[in-house]
């Protein structure tokens, strides 16, 4: 292991290490961040939710968007799987259905970055999701 030779070194090192903890850091304060929940029950996984989730995690990071991507159980919209729920800071959650990588890209670019709604919003009773 190499020694840390200066404060500058230490700071550089820290930048590299930070990402490892980002997951925990962010989730400690989710209200101020974009929260994305991917429904990952059997039906969701079967229809590709896992790929979507990975895509979201990778892309959000690449595009420097502070977000928390978590998984959740079945949201009850099995017909529209994969579904994701996006909550922008201080806004109500919005659920998108039939999400694939292309759709996910659109959601990031339009809804998350510019707060523009995109196709595929599922009108929902949020109470059921919150639980």
């Amino acid at each position, binding site marked *: 292991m190499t020694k840390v*030779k200066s*404060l500058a070194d*230490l*700071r550089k090192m*820290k930048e590299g290490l930070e990402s490892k903890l980002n*997951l925990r850091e962010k989730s400690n304060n989710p209200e101020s961040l974009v929260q994305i929940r991917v429904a*990952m029950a059997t039906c*969701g996984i079967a229809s590709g939710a896992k790929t979507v989730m990975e895509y979201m995690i990778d892309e959000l990071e690449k595009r420097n968007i502070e977000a928390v991507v978590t*998984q959740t159980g079945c949201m009850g919209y099995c017909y529209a799987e994969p579904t994701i729920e996006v909550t922008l800071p201080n806004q109500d959650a919005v659920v998108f259905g039939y999400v694939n990588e292309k759709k996910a890209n659109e959601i990031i670019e339009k809804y998350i970055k510019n707060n523009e709604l995109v196709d595929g919003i599922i009108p929902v009773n949020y109470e059921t999701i919150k639980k």
Partner: protein
Amino acid sequence: MAKFKMHLLVCGGTGCHASLSQTIGDNLKEILVEKGLDHEVQVIMTGCFGFCEKGPIVKVMPDNTFYTEVKPADAREIIEEHIIKGRKVNRLLYQDPENKEHVSDSKHMGFYKKQIRIALRNCGFIDPENIDEYIARDGYEALGKVLTEMDAQQTIDIIKKSGLRGRGGGGFPTGLKWEITSKSQADQKYVVCNADEGDPGAFMDRSILEGDPHSVIEAMAICGYSIGGTKGLVYIRAEYPLAITRLKIAIAQAREYGLLGTDILGSGFDFDIELRYGAGAFVCGEETALIHSMEGMRGEPTFKPPFPSVSGYLGKPTNVNNVETFASIPVIINKGADWFSSIGSEKSKGTKVFALAGKINNVGLIEVPMGITLREIIYEIGGGIKDGKKFKAVQTGGPSGGCLTEHHLDTPIDYDNLIAAGSMMGSGGMIVMDEDDCMVSVAKFYLDFTVEESCGKCTPCRIGNKRLYEILETITQGKGTMEDLQKLKNLSYVIKDASLCGLGQTSPNPVLSTLDNFWDEYVEHVTVKKCRSSQCKALMQYIIEAEQCVGCTACARNCPVNAISGERKLAHYINQDICIKCGACMEKCKFNAISIK
């Protein structure tokens, strides 16, 4: 390197460890491998989450789910249900004691709501055995800053300005202590971390060392730089094996990174740390006794002055601070004195860690801003008294402290208010007592501890405390007199006034504060020979209610001392002079005719 999408934080603090949290961690890892998820989900053993009452704790990140009272067998369900299917395991969630709802996010639990975590900032968040995680959380930034951008006096000034006071009990201003040590002239000076936490019922230092050892190491190096010393010693209780292991790992890692050793961060400053073990002597929490113990001698205190800042370890200037004090230092340097002093009360800045225990629903480790009230701690954080009983007192400061009562519930807690109320901050033990606790017995419990732990060097503590204990014993035996209460008072004052060290000077506090706050209870013990909490065996009386007694003779036959007499089919009677209060009769009575008075 694998990129983990989820983290499972498993509490590795002593309490949870004792409840097999290591096995939980191992099981989780095993099942993750089995499911092929070990590259996606990482299991991390962390330090204490503080919520020991509900341990072992497993926290799932990033969705912030806080599982309580997890058993090793629950690992499979957590992974299969929560991780794979995304369904939270409801039965493992914390249940709000009032509305019975399951709470999954710890932030919404009463226990965590009022807490501000400074000393405990990394406990339960990072892997204490991984220096990288500490560095990622601004670790060693403060040391770097101090070494490269500041001189010793500037550092001391920040600490002084922050208003930080020693968290070990006395509350001496930390910055001032550093300054005095820095001004002492010597070829070598020492930084000592007092980790000989000995208050029965206090475990905050242990939790910090187990959960965030690097914060202490970093702070000791900062202190060394400020006072002009290159050697650090941690005096740690041998009873804390886990903390010792973690500290050793942390020191080795810091050395590997060059954050301990020579020319730290290219600044030319050298600093290293050694461990010294305590061996079970409470008095070694007193700094002069601690120093003698580190020198391989009996841990007897010596008269101050000279203070260790002038003449300490091996006769050299020595700065002694406790674990929690050190743990607060790096944050103060990073966030500034103003930030720190904005928290807390006027004369006591920042936060204090308390070990909340006793008859309270949420036993655990809490960190709260100075100036918080007892009511907030007991009812909001602590979730109220266990089993719906009535609150009676809370003991702070361990054997050096006293009991606070209902009257003090709304007193803001800080160093000075506690002393004014006849107690003290101590290291932060906070034991809640309910109506079932006899205050004379509580005082006796603490005196028993003091008698056991007195070093024996000075007369008032060696013999005086023994006599105090004996008088209390006489009272709980039902043989006390009003004159004894007077003796208790006089003796207590003399012991306080004339003892050599802090241990003796504070040892009568449990007696004096209970005499002040529960005088009636004492009087009851000596005049009507009654213990209202039915704790004093000698004052209890087993009574047979004549109306309920059918004269079955079961009690009389089972009495080991033949204290019960009575004709068959007629009410029986217990001769109190013979009765040894074993309770056998009450156990055998099928008609509930026997009760304790």
